Structure formats: structure tokens, C-alpha cells
């Protein structure tokens, strides 16, 4: 039998759970998200009560912002063992504090840094590659399909940048929407979106056409280099990059 601890589909819940497991002194066999956990006969599921928010706050206060940033980014990855990596990383961070970043020979530290960098790099790329379309209802609408779950990082970026616009970003694979109403960002699922009218604004086509013309013109023919283009802008993003649509 292995002991499996379940958390409730949020970063806070995972952190809360880990704060409790650390107190137990026994390392967990696994930590999993309740939402996508598939029960099996060998697992002994352990539910811990995660209600006392004071407890959580106290635990979070024992870490620097750097450390919380790192584990949050690991949480946004799709690594199968991310919960255990976060658990061991935090356990060591209680001992080493910010010096933990020097201990790259500790597997959990090295993995946490590499995974969090990977998530950060993808989020940075998508800050550039994401494309909005203006809809009739005045919403700027974008679809993405990132490898990591970076929609929250992108939303924080666009909340500052386009703070006076309505916008909606859809993560196509995860079926998550980030909706901004000029004040707050709301994260919604398919079921929570009542109706979605994707009809384009009258001027949309004109500006898309202008952009595609600019994109073609600005390249210097004598320097043509599709290989470099693909290296910097990987094919897996092309589906949602307006100017690359006809190249797929």
C-alpha cells in the first residue's frame, strides 16, 4: 500500500497540504490533484483537513518570494512528479532558506529550477506569440495551447498592458478561459461560459491583412532563413499565430 495525499485543484490547496505532510515526519508516497486522480487498489488515500487559512499563511510566510515563485511555476508545469518535487524542495528550503538555490546537486533543487525556468520561458514566448482578434462585442479574444499551464502568468501580463480593454484568453487543451472585465480576471471553464459569440468586428479582417503584409515585407529576401525562424518560433505554436496560419 502506498500513502497518497490529495489536494483540491489549486496552488493554495497544494501548499496547505504540504505544510501538513511536513509536520507528519513521514515522507508521502505520492501527492496528487483530486481532479485528475484515478483511484487504484494499491493506494491508501489520505484526506487531511485544509480549512484553517491561518495555518497556510503561517507556512507561506516561512519562505522568500523567490522560493514561492519557483514552486508556483513548477506547479504550473505538467511534470508527473511536480507535487513531490515541490514537497522536497520546500522541505529543504525550510533548512537552507534562499541558499537552497546553490544546492544544484540535490535532485529536487535542480529539477525545480529547471522546470520553473522552462515554464517561465514558455510564458515569455507566449507574451509575444499570443494573437488577439477583436470581436463584435468589443472583446479581444485569443486562443492558446501551451505545453505548460501558463494562462495565469499571461493574464497578469495583459491585465497591466491592456487594462482598459475587455479580453478573453482560451487555453484550448485545458478548456480554461481567462476573462477580464477591465477590473478583474476570472478563470472559467467551458461550463461556466454561458454563450460565446465569436463574430469578428468589421475592421478585424483589414488589420489582419495589414499585419500579414507587414510580416511578409519586413523580411530581407537575401537573408531568408526558415530554419532560424523555426528555431525561434517553434512549429507547435503556429496554429495560433495569425501570420503563420498559411504555413501549416
Amino acid at each position: 500500500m502506498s500513502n497518497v495525499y490529495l489536494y483540491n485543484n489549486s496552488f493554495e490547496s497544494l501548499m496547505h497540504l504540504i505544510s501538513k505532510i511536513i509536520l507528519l515526519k513521514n515522507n508521502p508516497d505520492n501527492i496528487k490533484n483530486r481532479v485528475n486522480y484515478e483511484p487504484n487498489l494499491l493506494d491508501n488515500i489520505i484526506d487531511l483537513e485544509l480549512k484553517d487559512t491561518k495555518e497556510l499563511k503561517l507556512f507561506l510566510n516561512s519562505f522568500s518570494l523567490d522560493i514561492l515563485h519557483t514552486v508556483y511555476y513548477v506547479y504550473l508545469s505538467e511534470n508527473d512528479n511536480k507535487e513531490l518535487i515541490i514537497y522536497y524542495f520546500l522541505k529543504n528550503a525550510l533548512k537552507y532558506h534562499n541558499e537552497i538555490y546553490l544546492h544544484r546537486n540535490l535532485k529536487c533543487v535542480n529539477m525545480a529550477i529547471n522546470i520553473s525556468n522552462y515554464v517561465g520561458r514558455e510564458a515569455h514566448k507566449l507574451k509575444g506569440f499570443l494573437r488577439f482578434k477583436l470581436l463584435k462585442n468589443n472583446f479581444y479574444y485569443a486562443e492558446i495551447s501551451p505545453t505548460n499551464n501558463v494562462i495565469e502568468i499571461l493574464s497578469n501580463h495583459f491585465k497591466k498592458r491592456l487594462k482598459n480593454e475587455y479580453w478573453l484568453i482560451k487555453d484550448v487543451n485545458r478548456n480554461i478561459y481567462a476573462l477580464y472585465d477591465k477590473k478583474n480576471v476570472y478563470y472559467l471553464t467551458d461550463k461556466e461560459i454561458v454563450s460565446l459569440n465569436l463574430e469578428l468586428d468589421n475592421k478585424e479582417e483589414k488589420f489582419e491583412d495589414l499585419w500579414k503584409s507587414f510580416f511578409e515585407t519586413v523580411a530581407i529576401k537575401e537573408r531568408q532563413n526558415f530554419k532560424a525562424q523555426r528555431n525561434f518560433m517553434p512549429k507547435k505554436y503556429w496554429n495560433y499565430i495569425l501570420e503563420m496560419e498559411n504555413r501549416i
Partner: protein
Amino acid sequence: MVIKMDLKEKLIILSDSAKYDASCSSSGSSRKNANGVGNAAYSGICHSFANDGRCISLLKILMTNSCIFDCKYCINRRSNNVKRAIFTPEEICTITINFYKRNYIEGLFLSSGIIKSPDYTMEKIIETVYLLRNKYHFNGYIHAKAIPGASEYLLKKLGKLVDRLSANIELPSDNSLKLLAPQKSVNKIDKIMTTVKENKSRFFVPAGQSTQMIIGASSETDLDILNKSEHLYNKYELKRVFYSAYIPVNSDKLLPTIKMPPLVRENRLYQADWLLRFYGYKVDNLLDKNNPNFNILLDPKADWALRHLDEYPKEINKASYYDLLKIPGIGPKSAQKIINARKVFKIEFSDLKKMNVSIKRAMYFITCNGKYYFNNAISKGFIESNLILDSKEKIESIGTQLTLFNE
């Protein structure tokens, strides 16, 4: 005669004639969004990559490609018979704002041919940027060209509105400039750079100034060019010098005839430029009168290392930061990782790999805890041939812009 054109035709003409400027950077500014549209990202953001592999970050356009100057190398020179167009300030604002809100771009890069006079042209640029900032409340990145010969008060006005200013030197020596761009003069460029340097602040050109030199249109050696760059970095605190491989757009008896733009040479100059700015090298370490041009087959750092093999191997667990930077394949990021890690443990070859420090090129030049990667002594020729093959692969696949050393 001015014929009425639609916006698309103008955009095509005026981006086509702006594309030879190598600068694409949108970094160095942290302008905030004061309840309008947009902000700047300090690290800069690439929004797309063109078919030539160069980053597209800014809407790079000319206000007009009409010009009273007749610089020999320039596609927009007065004597060329090309289609001319001019944007109104409102048109530029409309395209910029609409592209920006759709997240196509990080901002605007506005340059222009010179119409009527340098002052008149500069006033038009200022009018456009002023509209963007004050009518459209645009807080995204703006890079504007300063027009050589325009009045200082106009330059000061423009500097308060933009994130970056640049004036292109274009040719590395006064003689070449006199020959190929007689209406531009070193003095005029010098005046611009001095004014920008003296006034630079959080509110005046916060992302600093840059310039560009064309490579291969005139007879200068790499040594001449790099000396010029080093001088510019020191004297005007330039953020960047861009190098642009000469592409023949005009034929003129004063210009060289070439089949291919010197892209590898351009790449070597970028690499050397990085060595000057971030690696602690000086020009006279890299080149001298007897050896005034870079080795086309090897990057300047590897080339230097092979000529100074007696300084290697360097011990990863002991070498200073700048000594680590002298190892081919190790850049500032990797050097910092090594310095951090060795505070708490002794680094082995396998640790480097785990930390994502590539040893593909470094392995010939280092020891880890006294151990060398190869069991037998290896010769200079052995290292050289391996590095040349690596470098060949990289030039073909990476292009020249962002990843200069792949470190």
C-alpha cells in the same frame, strides 16, 4: 506627383524601405501603463520571427521614403527611381494602436527619409509620437530615429517622448562617409549622441541610444570597425551597436559588387561585440594590425582560446568569473551557475550537464576537480577541427540575431 494610395500599399512601401535597419530590440524600458494602452517590458519581447529569422518586436516603418539626400548605399536615395509614399501621423497612430492591442507588436520604430529639411522631418516625427503618447495614451515602446542636422531643441523634445533614440553611423570611417554619404557627417551624428548622453534619465530616452554600421560596403577591416564600436561604447555609453551585412540595393561604381551579403562576418562582429560588453575582452586582445580580421571558420572566443592554449585548461571549481567566461561555450549565465554551485559542492562533469551547462565546446578547455575530459592528451589540431565542425552546424541552423554563442 502624389497619387492617392490605400493604407496597405503605403505600409508595404514604407516597411519595405525600413527593413534594412538591423535594430529590433524592445528592451531597457520599464514604462508603466498610466491608465492608457500598453507598457514596456524591461527584458523586451519578440512577437514574431520573419522569414529571414530576425525578431519582429516593433512596427518598423519609415514616415516617408522620399529623401533629399543621396547616400550611395541607400535604397531611398534621391536619385533612385522607386515608388514613394508618406504616412500621416494619424495613419501611423492607427496602425500602431491596432497592431498593439492585437498583440502583434511591442511598439513602434519610426524612422524617415528627409523631406524639405532635417528640422521639418524631425517635427513630423515628433508630431506623430506626441499624438501617440497624448491623444492615444500609448505607453508601449517607441524607438525613433534622430535626424542628422536637426536642431538640438527638437532632439530634446523627441527624447522626452520615446524610449530609445538612435542615429546611424552607417560607415565606420570619416573617409567612407564622405565618399558614400556626403550629406551625412560625423559631426552631426556626434552632436546627436552627445546630447542624448548628456540628457539621459528615467524620463529622457530611458532605454538609451544605439547605432548601426553597414558591414562590407566600404574597405574597413574588422579591427577598424571594432575600434569604432569600442570608442562609441566608451564615449557615448551606447546601449548597442548593430551591424548590418551590406546588401547591394543600388549599383554604383563606388560600391563593391558582391554575390552574398557577408552574414558570417556580421555574426563574428556581433560575437566580438558581446565579448567587449559582457566578457571583459578588449579589442586589442582579439585583433591587431597583423591580424585585422576575424577567422570566418571560428568564433572570436574559440579562436582566441586556440591561440592561447597555454592558459588552459581552467579548473571549474577554482577559476574566477572572468576566467570562466574565457572558456568557449561558457557565458555569463553558466559562469554564474558554476560560481553559485561550487559554494556548496565540488562540481563534476556530470553536474555541469545536470545544470544545463553545455560542455560540448567547453570540454577541451576545462578540468573538474583536476580531471580532464579526455584520457589522452589531445592536440590543437584535434580541438580546432572539432570546433570548426560544431560552428558550421550552428551558423546554418541558428541565424545571427539572438543566440550569439548559444551559451
